[in-house]
């Protein structure tokens, strides 16, 4: 027996020994370094019908762009294999020409007529009929999914109610104003100086704006205008609208469309840009906003406010005045669905959808580590890639985001820069000036080839200190080389030589405007510590949110110095050019690190660099790079090129495995030596948009306190109160007039209440009302907006109801008493009959007893 136990134990040890490494590997693989998936394949498909078909049939896992076709989206919704996330960012409006015409009549010079256009447009109709539900009505330039909307949602909601569709009201205003402007209605048409008033609408034909344009034309015709519908493409419309003379009378209305590619945090310039001459377009110079509105708009434009509250006040004021002005009549915010197969996770930006750097850092298959993702895109590999002035295409950027890395990434639900490579940072702002220490690198002397340190008396508006943790000698690049101080500072002079030294072979005119802007803000930088790596940047760039200042100041050497160096050498030798501009000007090839004729040139330049132990910009770089280190780095790159066939070496979570230019496909593979694990941004998997439930009182009685209960939750659980920005409420009457507003008070986690005091309810007359709640989270820009109706009844009715209730209660109690009395009677009767029986029996017993006693007594006497 003992032997058997021993052998069993040994067997178990052997089996466990064999399994342990695998178990350990599985455990380790649960959260791998780098991304969740092993590879992403980007391929091109621009036919949306085919895209949906391929997604349904499993030929594609995700499509990186939005599918807005309502019919196709319906298929997506009904498909059991597909899922989608929504984003915002496309929005449409009608631009009304504010200029007085040289010839002809323009009613839209009159702001009241412009304002009236809001009433004659049924935005709900447009949402339902034109966009088939894939849009939200819009009255102001703020996107409803972005922070600015949430911040003043209470004000906007009121305005939306005020300017709701009311054709008759709009018509009344138009008729009144047209008459004032000297127009006459003849045979059902407006005339000015005996000529019919013709409204020329330039209708863009590329998207739903075509139908919007025709809808608006129909509405204008109903008002008695003759309408000239001019369908135009962007190319045809742009010279007329933006560069043409607006007084020529070539157009009255233009169906404008806008796009925001990232969640915009600060839209305080919107009033200035869209309603005043601060905006762009020749017609904007004819805008004559109300002086008060212009002051509000320009103060916001210049950020001329002391406090955040003051800014918010200006924003709220501006909203009302923008609708009074209505140079732009906003129509809808489009809802853009982004589609993937079920089981594929990944964060989608609230503006750009999957076209964000965070997507590739969060993409993965549910319940699985590894695997491959086939990602369809509208374009793949368009322009040359190089680390200095390469492609600017979004199609390329999508792939570049996977292989490159950044100090900050943009939060997909807030639009705020969030630390990625930076571990922690501090921002100090002082508008009056922060002294810049004398050891910071302030400038580069292109003549003397030396660093210029900050001269005494140099000040900056902000100081940013960034801590990157322990990175030098630890962070690996894709070619196996390890980050050193040289990657941070060796090529610092290159920026100056390229944009500020016309004598240099690296000088590139196209870099000058950007450099000038940067130089206006840049006040210097210095390395505070090498381990942990800490730098300090001094800048004049400021922003209301410190994250943006930090993002401006703190960078990351994504490309190692030796990779940029071969490009520098190629440009110095006049073989290639980093920028498209310089390439054209010099007749050279635009430098491409991943394909085309550039590759052979870069390969030969690399050989030369190895041979000559080349150190770029040696006056500075040679202090940080030894010749033998340079050769080792170049050799690593050569090996990489021989194996991979391209020169794209970076520090991102993926590396470029293949770029097939004929098939327009790119394959990126997981870089498992990446510094971070795949769950770094796991918390961003879904946008935590709060869900609101309102429990209104059964009825509200004037003069009696009323309590509204509000539940704020996410995924069925109470929303953490420390992550809630605000829970605001509005009370509106049936006409949309504001009766009260304020903030709800927290009762417990996820529960809030609003108590309307008796004084306030006393002012309410009987009728139906709306209670609206706007809940904003700190973790997502989209506010939750919920409405609930409630009834206010007259006091007499209340008391009648109260009496009725009391009477009912009493009657109920009486009948209850009655119903309990009946069984008591029955019990008494039963008791009575029992008693009678007992009495009878007792009587009989007594009689018997008496008789027996009597008999005994007689017998005794008889014996005696």
């Amino acid at each position, binding site marked *: 027996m003992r032997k058997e136990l021993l052998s069993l134990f040994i067997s178990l040890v052997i089996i466990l020994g064999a399994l342990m490494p695998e178990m350990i590997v599985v455990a380790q693989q649960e959260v791998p370094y780098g991304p969740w998936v092993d*590879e992403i*394949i980007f*391929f*091109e*498909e*621009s*036919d949306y019908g*085919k895209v949906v*078909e*391929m997604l349904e*049939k499993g*030929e594609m896992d995700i499509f990186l762009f939005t599918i807005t076709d309502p019919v196709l989206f319906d298929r997506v919704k009904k498909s059991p294999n597909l899922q989608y996330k929504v984003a915002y960012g496309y929005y449409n409006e009608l631009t009304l020409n504010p200029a007085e015409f040289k010839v002809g009549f323009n009613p839209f010079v009159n702001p009241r007529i412009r304002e009236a256009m809001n009433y004659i447009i049924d935005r709900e109709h447009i949402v339902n009929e034109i966009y088939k539900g894939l849009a939200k009505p819009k009255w102001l330039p703020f996107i409803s999914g972005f922070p600015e909307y949430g911040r003043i949602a209470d004000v906007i909601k009121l305005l939306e109610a005020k300017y709701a569709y009311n054709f008759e009201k709009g018509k009344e205003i138009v008729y009144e104003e047209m008459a004032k402007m000297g127009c006459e209605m003849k045979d059902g048409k407006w005339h000015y100086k005996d000529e019919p008033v013709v409204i020329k609408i330039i209708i863009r034909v590329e998207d739903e704006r075509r139908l919007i344009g025709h809808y608006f034309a129909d509405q204008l015709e109903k008002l008695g205008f003759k309408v000239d519908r001019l369908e135009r493409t962007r*190319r045809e419309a742009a*010279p007329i609208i*933006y*560069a043409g003379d607006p007084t020529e009378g070539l157009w009255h209305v233009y169906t404008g469309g806008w796009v925001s590619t990232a969640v915009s945090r*600060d839209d305080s*310039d919107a009033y200035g*840009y869209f309603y005043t001459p601060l*905006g*762009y*377009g020749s017609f904007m110079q004819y805008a004559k906003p109300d002086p008060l509105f212009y002051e509000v708009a320009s103060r916001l434009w210049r*950020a001329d406010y002391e406090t955040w509250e003051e800014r918010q006040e200006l924003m709220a004021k501006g909203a009302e005045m923008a609708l009074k002005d209505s140079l732009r009549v906003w129509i809808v915010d489009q809802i853009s669905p982004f589609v993937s197969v079920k089981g594929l996770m990944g964060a989608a930006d609230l503006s750009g959808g999957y076209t964000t750097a965070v997507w590739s850092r969060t993409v993965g298959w549910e319940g699985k580590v590894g695997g491959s993702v*086939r990602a369809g895109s509208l374009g793949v*590999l*368009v*322009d*040359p*890639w190089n680390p200095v002035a390469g492609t600017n295409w979004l199609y390329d950027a999508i792939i570049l985001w996977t292989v490159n890395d950044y100090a900050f990434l943009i939060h997909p639900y807030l639009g705020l820069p969030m630390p990625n490579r930076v571990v922690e940072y501090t921002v100090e702002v002082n508008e009056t000036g922060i002294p810049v220490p004398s050891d910071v690198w302030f400038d580069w002397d292109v003549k003397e080839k030396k660093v210029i340190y900050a001269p005494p008396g140099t000040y900056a508006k902000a100081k940013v200190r960034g801590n990157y943790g322990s990175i030098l000698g630890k962070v690996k690049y894709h070619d196996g080389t390890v980050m050193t101080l040289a990657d941070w500072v060796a090529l610092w002079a290159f920026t100056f030589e390229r944009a500020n030294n016309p004598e240099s072979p690296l000088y590139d*005119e*196209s870099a000058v*405007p950007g450099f000038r*802007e940067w130089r*206006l*803000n840049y006040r210097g930088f210095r390395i505070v510590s090498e381990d942990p790596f800490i730098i300090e940047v001094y800048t*004049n*760039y*400021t*922003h209301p949110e410190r994250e*943006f200042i930090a993002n*401006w100041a703190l960078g990351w050497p994504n490309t190692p110095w030796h990779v940029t160096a071969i490009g520098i050498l190629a440009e110095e030798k006049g073989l290639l050019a980093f920028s*498209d*501009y310089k*390439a*054209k*000007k010099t007749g050279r*090839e*635009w430098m*491409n690190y*991943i*394909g*085309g*004729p*550039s590759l052979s040139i870069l390969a030969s330049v690399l050989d030369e660099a190895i041979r000559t132990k080349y150190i770029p910009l040696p006056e500075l770089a040679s202090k940080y790079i030894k010749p033998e280190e340079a050769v080792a780095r170049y050799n690593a790159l050569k090996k990489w090129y021989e194996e991979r066939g391209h020169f794209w070496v970076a520090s991102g979570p993926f590396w470029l495995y*293949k770029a*097939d230019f*004929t*098939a327009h*496909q790119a*394959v990126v593979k997981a870089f498992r030596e990446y510094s971070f694990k795949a769950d770094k941004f796991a918390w961003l998997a879904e946008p935590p948009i709060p869900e609101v439930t309102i429990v209104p009182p059964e009825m509200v009685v004037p003069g009696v306190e009323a309590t509204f209960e509000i539940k704020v939750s996410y995924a069925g659980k109470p929303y953490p109160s420390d992550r809630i920005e605000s829970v605001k409420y509005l009370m509106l009457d049936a006409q949309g007039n504001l009766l009260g507003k304020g903030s709800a008070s927290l009762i417990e986690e996820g529960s809030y209440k609003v108590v309307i005091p008796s004084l306030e309810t006393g002012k309410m007359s009987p009728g139906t009302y709306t209670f609206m709640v706007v809940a904003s989270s700190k973790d997502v820009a989209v506010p939750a907006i919920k409405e609930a109706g409630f009834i206010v009844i007259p006091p007499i009715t209340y008391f009648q109801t109260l009496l009725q209730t009391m009477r009912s209660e009493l009657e109920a109690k009486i009948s209850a008493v009655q119903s309990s009395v009946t069984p008591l009677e029955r019990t008494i009767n039963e008791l009575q009959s029992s008693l009678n029986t007992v009495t009878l029996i007792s009587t009989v017993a007594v009689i018997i007893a008496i008789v027996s006693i009597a008999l005994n007594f007689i017998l005794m006497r008889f014996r005696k």
Partner: protein
Amino acid sequence: MIKMSVKGPILFIVKRAIALYLIVVLSVYITIVIANLGGYVDRITQAQILEDITFTIKRDPQYRGLPPEEVDRIIRDTYELELKKLGLDTPFIVRSFRYLVNGLTLDLGRALYLTSDTGSRQVKLIILERLPQTVMLFTTASVLNFFIHLFLGLYLSRHYGGKLDKLFIALSPTSIVPGWLYGLFLIMIFASILRVLPYGGYVDVPPPDDPVSYGLSVLKHMILPLSSWIISGFFMGVYGSRTFYLIFSTEDYVTVAKAKGLPPRIIERRYILRPALPPVITSFSLGLIGSWGGAIITETVFNWPGLGKVMRDAINSMDTPVIVGEVIIYAYLLAITVLLLDILYLFIDPRIRARFR
């Protein structure tokens, strides 16, 4: 055998070459003017550039802190740089002749917006990198079509009035339907329903690593677009060939040959095919040249990386150098083909030879 002098044909060829060259020059210049809408495209492009730059800069928070005049200066500088980059700082008329001279000397220059597949702006590379795929698909289709039509046409002309002949006549109107429409049906049947062939594209996703698998994958992706072209031209092409040979087979000299009792093979080869050779060669050559231009819609439907899509993109983005580049190469090829055909006719067509006796 008719003897001909050497001087006459050479003079003829030189005259034809000059005439063809002048036609090329004229057609290329017309293309340049049309592609630029007589210079109006410049205005459009400039407005677009200004719009894009102003929008980007004015809405960029980084520039908001700067004084308005500084922002305007940055906008102006960036705009002027962009104009210089695109060469729009030179008047259109000057550029139009520059385009023409460069084009005629085959210095196709740089594209304004498009890049080649490997990211080069050189128009030459933009065209050359797409040419193999175009030739692979459309030239194959043209060659296959040519031989299918030739042999089936001949067969039907021999069996004139038969059931098959009647069937082809009846079905010939189906060729009115363009190839890409057949393509859509083929995609629906073979990709969507049967799932045996891909929806389109050039190669599998991801592209196979070894060249043999890669080549086979490309062939698999060619099946549907190739079939769509063959189906589209099939009945009409065969019907056309059959009618063409029928006309030749009813010539008097064929009747005489038949009356002389010559065997049908000899009649077909010497009396029908031989006189039909010049138009057949012409049709084949022009079909071949035509196939090098690709097919815009078919390439789009099948997502095939050919020259048709380059032309579409060039027209959409008004990239004049690319449009001109494609046109000039096509014009040269056409002119050279026509000239070669003229020379060829000298040898194969006795009627032409007779003019130079």
